[in-house]
């Protein structure tokens, strides 16, 4: 500020002093004005170009509808690692097969929402529905009558329903019977041939749970000294706690727990923890979701079944596209089983 002031003073003195000073100041003023004009012009041009250039990208409009297949993958439990992986791989496969695929679904096992999505998909007359099986009458009715009426093929993934009741084309996912077998075998291996085992399953007897139970029991029946106790609960937290409590009261000397429905496992373990140490019990679950993995890491679970979600997504899309293209006809009704293996607590540690 001081410098500017002194500069102005000097300039004024110069102007007063002589003609040459006047000319000098004239030059300065002209240069200054030119600079200001130029700067303003530059700013104006910049603004004008910003205003008048249309750089926004509107989506390309299409006149004709796409000719490739429209597929929908519907799950009951969106935004879980398992289904994210299924969806991602399915999308990849869809892209390589040049079909459009959208992943729909409900959050947190909301059956109403899930079934609504299913219905919308049917009414939208998509070319194929890949769906997580839900063993309810409504689902079966939708699959059997509605989808069939519109001629939409259905492939179940991850969880199966019986083919007679749903008229699904095929199933892609883990072999639940085999999973049951593997858990049972692991149990025998860990616990030995004698002991009490509590099997807690969801009261909404889903098809895949039946398969798992069957798989477990088929192994365990070879060991007469292993005593099986069935526990039935629904998916609410309170019920799980109550059932677990009841079973622990009834069978205080129990050695192992198997959560046939993976969603039960966490609450069940919490309840067991409240009673005593978790470590002495052999606890198994079928899920490989985040909670199960965490529990496994903490050593509270002794083993879980690890599935192959990526393969499920990929294979289901591939089979659907093949079927729509009439390449593999007919599909195997019993299903295409993806890899499973038992993940033990000591494997992770």
């Amino acid at each position, binding site marked *: 500020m001081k410098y500017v002031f002194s500069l102005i003073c000097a300039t004024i003195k110069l102007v007063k002093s002589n003609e040459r000073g006047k000319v000098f100041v004239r030059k300065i003023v002209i240069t200054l*004005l030119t600079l200001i004009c130029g700067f303003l012009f530059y700013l104006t041009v910049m603004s004008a170009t910003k205003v*008048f250039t249309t750089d926004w990208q509107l*989506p390309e409009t299409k006149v004709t509808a796409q000719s490739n297949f429209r597929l929908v993958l519907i799950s009951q439990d969106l935004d879980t690692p398992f289904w994210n992986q299924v969806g991602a791989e399915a999308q990849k496969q869809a892209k390589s097969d040049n079909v459009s695929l*959208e992943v729909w679904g409900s959050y947190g096992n909301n059956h109403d929402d899930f079934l609504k999505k299913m219905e919308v998909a049917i009414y939208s007359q998509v070319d194929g529905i890949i769906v997580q099986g839900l063993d309810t009458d409504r689902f079966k009715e939708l699959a059997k009558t509605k989808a069939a009426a519109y001629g939409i093929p259905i492939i179940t993934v991850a969880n199966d329903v019986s083919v007679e009741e749903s008229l699904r084309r095929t199933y892609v996912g883990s072999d639940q019977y085999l999973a049951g077998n593997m858990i049972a075998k692991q149990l025998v291996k860990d616990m030995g041939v004698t002991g009490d085992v509590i099997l807690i399953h969801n009261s909404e007897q889903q098809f895949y749970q039946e398969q798992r139970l069957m798989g477990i029991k088929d192994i365990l029946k070879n060991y007469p000294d292993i005593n099986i106790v069935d526990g039935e609960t629904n998916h609410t937290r309170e019920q799980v706690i109550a059932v677990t409590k009841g079973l622990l009261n009834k069978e205080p000397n129990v050695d192992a727990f198997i959560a046939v429905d993976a969603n039960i496992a966490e609450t069940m373990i919490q309840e067991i923890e409240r009673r005593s140490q978790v470590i002495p019990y052999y606890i198994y679950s079928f899920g490989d979701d985040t909670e199960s993995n965490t529990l496994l890491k903490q050593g509270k679970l002794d083993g879980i079944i690890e599935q192959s979600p990526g393969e499920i997504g990929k294979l289901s899309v591939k089979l659907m596209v093949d079927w729509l293209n009439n390449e593999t006809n007919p599909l195997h009704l019993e299903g295409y089983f993806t890899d499973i293996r038992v993940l033990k607590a000591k494997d992770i540690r």
Partner: protein
Amino acid sequence: MNSILKNIWVLAIVVLSIMVTIWISLTSYNNKMQSQYNNILERYLIMNEVSSISQQIVTDLNNYFVDQSLIKKKALNHDKFKIITMKEEVSKFRSVENDFAIANYENLIDSFIETIDRALMFRTEEESEDYQEALSEATNISMYISEMTLDLIDTELKTYDSFYHGIIDRSEELKVLGVRLLMLITLLLLLFTYWFSKRITTPLKKLTLAASELSKGRFDLKVEVESNDEIAFLAKTFDRMRININNYLVEIKQKAQLENELQKNKLLLQESQLHSLQSQINPHFLFNTLDTLSKKAYLEGSEQTSDLLVSVADLLRYNLRNLDKTTYLSDEVYVLRQYIEIQKARFTERLQFHMDIDPVSLDIQLPRLTLQPIIENAIIHAIEPLEDGGAIWFRAVNGLDRVTIEIQDHGPGMSADKVSSILEGQSNETEGHSTGIGVSNVIKRLTLFYGVEDIINIESALGIGTKVVLNIPRKRRMDKDD
């Protein structure tokens, strides 16, 4: 010619074209934006209409079920037709991003129409249960359509998000542009106006300056204006006028000069008359005779006569020399003394002559025969007519740059008219003068010789006397008169 009018027009047109350009660009921009807005709004309106029409159809169907009249059926068919048209409208919104959703939407509408048809069919076949089922299905689908409409609009909003932000940014930028444009145009216009007005006023200022110089009498300054408009033309004309006036002035001066010379020639003529008179006498004969007379008188013991004769000879000799030649005051005074000697011999005691001369003043130059005619004049008017005679004073006083010579008498004096007529050279008396040269001749010669008017002054009063004062400058002003 680059006229002022033309310049003003150019300025007006430039400003106008800038305004028009801005107006056109802003209007076109506005139109473009408007059409974009309309486009987007139309999508939403159409989608919304689809959902409301589907609900309307369900209501129509219900109404038809309750009251199986033709009007209800007509309304139903009308709405059905409407939704089919709407479906076509919606299909126009197909883009890469919402292809799947649009396809679903269209099929949903198809399913809806199908269900409606089925319901109508069951209705005509009186299958109440199936009809009810179809109706509830239609209600469901209508609900799904509404939901999917919302989804579609939501997707649209997401898709066009950047577009909307672009529009908002642009409208913000438009404000900034407006301010900047205003500033730029204001500055440019101010500068241009300054330059433009300067172009007009600078020549005018110069012209004004030139005019004021001209009014002061300076005709030698050139009027210069560097422009090529009407003012330059005015300046040129003005300059031409100045040159003309200047020429007239020069002419008048020349005329004055000419008149002066004419006056001079008149005097020369007088002199030449004198010369002709002089030439009638053989001077050598006269001088020799006078010398002889002087010597004779001396030898006869009349010394006074002899001196008188010498004085006469000297006086004549002096007078007969060339009048043009200048002389010193000392010579003039010497001749004056000789003349007084001669006049004293004539008037004896009646003539009293007093001389008072500052010796320093003797070296000044003055034309020959200037003092003698004045003294003679004094004698003629102040001594001769009076019985008791009179006195004449002659004084020469040295001043700083001039010498004052006074010749005073106590004669009868003159009236003021007479004095002024003598000074203006109108009276030309030469009667009674020994040399034929009168006072007025002396005055004219002195005026010409020094080139100033106030060289001689006469103070006179009737009955008191006359005093002639000569102010002789030490330096002559006009050397060319030599």
